[in-house]
């Protein structure tokens, strides 16, 4: 059976960056999903002023989620979370795919987290985002 790549949710991103991410990620076999409950990784706008806070919120709700900030202004990305490498890294298709779940250091956490957390954590997450739990 063909194994699907990491599932990724795209956060609030500019339309140009989002278009680029969509193509790069799907070409590499990632699955784009609409909600963090279904995702192995979340991509945020690294240029947004509150990106750190947003990453902390996501990680608090979904401890195993891989959270990655991607810049449209500069060719850099940054991984968030306790296990993430510190600082910014050069942004390339390779480093992006590594960051969202293809690198050995990240393997294993996402699928397990998704199985364990998705059903239980989604209502709380939805409430936090001001949405009706669905």
């Amino acid at each position: 059976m063909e194994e699907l790549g990491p599932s990724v949710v795209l956060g609030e991103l500019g339309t140009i960056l989002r278009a680029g991410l969509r193509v790069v990620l799907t070409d590499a076999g990632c699955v784009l999903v609409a909600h963090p409950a279904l995702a192995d990784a979340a991509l945020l706008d690294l240029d947004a002023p509150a990106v750190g806070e947003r990453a902390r919120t996501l990680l608090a709700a979904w401890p195993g989620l891989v959270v990655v900030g991607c810049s449209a202004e500069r060719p850099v990305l940054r991984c968030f979370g306790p296990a993430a490498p510190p600082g910014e890294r050069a942004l390339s298709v390779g480093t992006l795919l590594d960051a969202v779940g293809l690198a050995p250091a990240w393997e294993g956490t996402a699928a397990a987290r998704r199985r364990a957390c998705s059903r239980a954590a989604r209502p709380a997450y939805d409430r936090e985002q001001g949405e009706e739990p669905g």
Partner: protein
Amino acid sequence: MGVVTTATAVWVDDPNPIFRQGLATCLREQGFEVAGTTAGLRPEPDLRDSGVLLFDVEAVGLARATALGHRAGVRLIGLVREAREELLYESLTAGLAGVLVRGDLTPERLAGCVRAVAEGHGALPPDLLGQMLSSLARGAPAGGAATALARRELAVLRLLAAGDSTRDIAGRLSYSERTVKNIVHDVLVKLNCRTRAHAVALATRQGVI
């Protein structure tokens, strides 16, 4: 200047590989052909089949991009990180036909700018043009080539500066669109400008509009 359709080929240069992919994707979705992509114009692209070069001004530098663009006969659009007046002047005097601000960029703005530039017009962020015109109106020196413009040429230039299209200007001044295009052509020749935006900037700087 020939009329170019949405099949215009665009070369996309940007140092950010994901943003570059996004630019290319959005252009294709809007009906443009993407002739190729590079980062930092390396390796130097073969622009023979391109009508427009879209590039990041800070990453490449105006001098290098304009030299390459002029040599290849393509029209240039610069992506800038912030809407600064000085940068706009620099860009226009270097011969850029369009400027886009990265942070404000949407597929529609991108397509509108590329389409306008491909058709021989200029395209500038409206807020930036407004700032520039205000500041020039406060301290613009008089004189220069623009003082040689005839009254009807100045009238057309003023309406161009106000953002009117050829059709709008024709309507306002009771000319045919063909006449307006001829007047604009004469203005560009007299001022030795490559684009309408460049002519507006020059005439404004020289204090004649």
